[in-house]
């Protein structure tokens, strides 16, 4: 038996230690073309699946990556997050009272089915999205449109606030001035779609998309892959880009990264902690590694209506108790510590707020004493988290940080839907691990939704801290109508400061995106809003990518084994 165990150990040793060194850097290089050229297939992936390709309804991150290839909108953002016209010929003109927005469309823009895109298509697409039967998650962003409620209740066939002025001009009228309407008009919900496609596919349009984007859908094998083909009718068709995009879905992180290193995938993102560390340390991948902000905030939401968090000093104590740097280390530096309600790239982020919510255990104990708990809090506090290993890790970190100041934290881990329902119900969850992604690059998408008192409803509350502050409400309402961007930023900064000091959340971090691409992938940049934005990528190596298939001959490394030659 001992000899058998010895042999077994030997096998393990051979497998684990004896293997030849894998390539540390990219396997394939670019051709060195300075000028963009068309051609080739860009092969990309995601760990989750595309749920649908209807811009009115498919609002998950993975589907949006595909939607950005298939559709284009009136407005979009450049890489610096400035609003830019796309199908619109220019940014809209806005009336003096800030309630009416007039868009002029580019002429000659065509859907991929060949028909010209006109203002009537924009109106139909908007009304299709706003119709209750569509169940679009985007309706809330357009709630100020004149005539929306009459339309939703079936009293009117059209939204009276959407008016087609001529073949290429359309006007939107709001009940109150709202600067975020421009942001809303750059969301995929508004992307024009041809109504005839919805007539042809009444039940499965999400699988048969037709848009005015750079690509068309060539093939979709659910759960496996989607293939997009360059749209020759795209209004920027002359811009060189990859002929095809092969989008593989449901790939596990470990194997996806191996495939990337093997040259089978052209772009890698969302890594295991070990792979992330490898990529950060790799000098050979360094020129092809990009980093960007995740555009999100994460923290501990404390229910301001429930003890002990109805006392601002307890909330501040929790905010001071969090060792954010340690959290970041625990996630291999995938997190950037922040101590305020906005991520750095959002106008309204304050550079002077760093000490208000920072790690300071002495201050935390002082705040607890001010709250009447000089020796810590006797009764345990319950924190709700959703399923998943990352949530568990964060909960354990929070537990340790709070234990150090005398607060005992109990963890309640439930399914995602139960988490969402219960934390959105008043007087239910004392504390929850919370995160929020931007819908668009505006402070409104964080502060309005998470901290305005109108969203602290008894049920289905988005303000899960049930935080109410009339001054914050007033600042946020003013900011929404303010047309001057500098003044608007100041208003959001003031609101951000009050929220941060009142600490309805212990603001912890924003995530850091790390991505890598093959040397022959050109013009790829991390977009501040869109995840994995591939529309403008061109390939420097279409010829060698074809050769790569031959290089994957399964027997090419036979010699490496003889006798344990490559080991």
């Amino acid at each position, binding site marked *: 038996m001992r*000899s*058998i165990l*010895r*042999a*077994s150990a*030997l*096998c393990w040793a051979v*497998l*684990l230690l004896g*293997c*030849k060194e*894998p390539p540390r850097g990219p396997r394939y290089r670019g051709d060195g073309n300075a000028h963009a050229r068309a051609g080739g297939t860009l092969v990309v992936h995601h760990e989750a*699946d595309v*749920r*649908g390709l*209807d811009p009115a309804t*498919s*609002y998950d991150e993975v589907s949006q990556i595909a939607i950005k290839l298939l559709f284009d909108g009136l407005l979009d953002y450049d890489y610096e997050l400035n609003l830019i016209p796309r199908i619109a010929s220019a940014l809209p003109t806005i009336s003096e009272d800030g309630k009416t927005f007039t868009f002029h469309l580019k002429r000659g823009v065509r859907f991929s089915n060949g028909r010209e895109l006109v203002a009537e298509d924009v109106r139909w697409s908007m009304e299709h999205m706003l119709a*209750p*039967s569509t*169940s679009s*998650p985007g*309706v*809330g962003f357009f709630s100020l449109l004149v005539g929306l409620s009459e339309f939703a209740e079936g009293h009117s066939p059209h939204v009276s606030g959407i008016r087609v002025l001529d073949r290429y001009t359309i006007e939107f009228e709001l009940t109150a001035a709202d600067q975020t309407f421009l942001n809303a008009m750059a969301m995929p919900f508004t992307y024009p779609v041809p109504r005839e496609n919805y007539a042809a596919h009444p*039940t499965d349009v999400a699988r048969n998309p037709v848009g005015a984007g750079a690509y068309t859908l060539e093939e979709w094998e*659910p*759960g*496996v892959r989607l293939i997009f083909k360059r749209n020759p009718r795209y209004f920027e068709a002359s811009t060189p880009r990859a002929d095809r995009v092969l989008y*593989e879905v*449901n*790939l*596990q992180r*470990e*194997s*996806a990264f*191996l*495939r990337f290193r*093997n040259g*089978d995938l052209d772009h890698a993102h969302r890594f295991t902690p070990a792979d992330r560390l490898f990529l950060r340390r790799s000098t050979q991948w360094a020129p092809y590694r990009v980093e960007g902000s995740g555009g999100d905030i994460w923290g501990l939401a404390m229910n301001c209506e429930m003890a002990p968090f109805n006392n601002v000093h307890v909330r501040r104590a929790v905010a001071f108790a969090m060792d954010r740097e340690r959290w970041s280390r625990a996630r291999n530096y995938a997190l950037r510590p922040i101590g305020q309600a906005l991520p750095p790239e959002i106008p309204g982020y304050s550079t002077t707020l760093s000490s208000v919510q920072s790690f300071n255990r002495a201050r935390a104990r002082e705040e607890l004493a001010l709250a009447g708990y000089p020796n810590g809090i006797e009764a345990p506090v319950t924190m709700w988290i959703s399923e998943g290993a990352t949530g568990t890790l964060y909960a354990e970190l929070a537990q340790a940080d709070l234990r150090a100041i005398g607060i005992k934290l109990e963890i309640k881990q*439930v*399914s*995602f*839907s*139960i988490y*969402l*329902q219960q934390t*959105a119900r008043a007087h239910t969850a004392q504390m929850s691990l919370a995160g929020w992604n931007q*819908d668009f690059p505006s402070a409104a998408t964080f502060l309005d939704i998470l901290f305005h008192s109108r969203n602290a409803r008894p*049920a*289905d509350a*988005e303000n899960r801290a049930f935080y109410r502050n009339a001054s914050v409400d007033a600042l946020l309402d003013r900011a929404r109508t303010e047309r001057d961007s500098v003044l608007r930023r100041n208003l959001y900064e003031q609101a951000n400061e009050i929220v941060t000091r009142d600490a309805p959340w212990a603001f912890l971090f924003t995530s850091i995106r790390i991505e890598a691409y093959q040397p022959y992938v050109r013009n790829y940049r991390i977009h501040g809003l869109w995840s994995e934005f591939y529309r403008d990528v061109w390939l420097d190596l279409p010829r060698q990518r074809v050769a790569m298939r031959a290089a*994957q*001959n*399964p*027997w*090419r*490394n*036979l010699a*490496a*084994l003889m006798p344990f030659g490559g080991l």
Partner: protein
Amino acid sequence: MLTVIGRRSLWAIPVLFVIQTSVFLLLNALGDPAVAQLGPRASAAQLQNWRHQHGTDRPLGTRYLEYMGGLVHGDMGVSHQESRRSVTDVLETRLPRTALLGAMAIVIEVVLGLLLGVIAAVRRNTLVDTGVMGVAILGISAPTFVTGLLFLNILAFRFGWFPVGGYGVDAMDHLRHALLPAFTLAITGIATYARVMRAEMLETLRSDYIRTARAKGLSEFRTVVVHAVRNALLPVVTLVGLSLPIIVSGAIISEAIYAWPGLGRLAVESITSRDDPVVMGVVLLSSLGVVIGNLFADIGVAALDPRVRTDG
């Protein structure tokens, strides 16, 4: 024999019924699928609309009876995903892929397992025997998620002998891509068969009729292959049926690691996206696989052992 098959098949019905009922109730205990599907931004009206469209706003009992009624008629419902494909349609796409993987795994484990077992027995107490049994212990002790990642990293990525996961584009490519995940699935089976076969062979090689065969002057090859292996094989054959449940459960891990788009990966996808009708469908198929595997094992035993046939 037919009585045995009939009795075992009838037992499958209450087993499947209990499994489906339990999973149905468990999924409902996980919270509202509308909230999981639409996320934190959904309004109350949108949630209600979704529930109405997918029928989850009706009482639990009504939904249960409808589901079970549909099941009797072969209707497993419609996926919660936006594509609204029927569950039968989804499963029809995925099942053949897992079947291919499973069939390849069974062939690999039977062929390699038996071969290694025979070699170890014939060369007992030599370096070969020790080596084979060492590999067998490794195979039995290492879980699929370890061997899977190890093989992917070493055999596919470092040596380049196999594709680094994926499904391929045509029939031959599918086979090429299936080799490594099938081998990973087969590892435990190979080890089990090798150990059992070795033990059986050692027993058989000591029996009188083998001694007689040798005394008659038969070659060692003929003695081993024609006489010993044939008899030692009988108890091992029943293990094939029992390996089906291991293949089904192993496929979940193996398919996820190798990005093989079969039932195992569908199980993971549908659970994470709270696509309850698809989860139910996958569970039904998996439990059916386990029940059929056990049935084959029972039939195998009954066919080979007359006492089981007569006692029932």
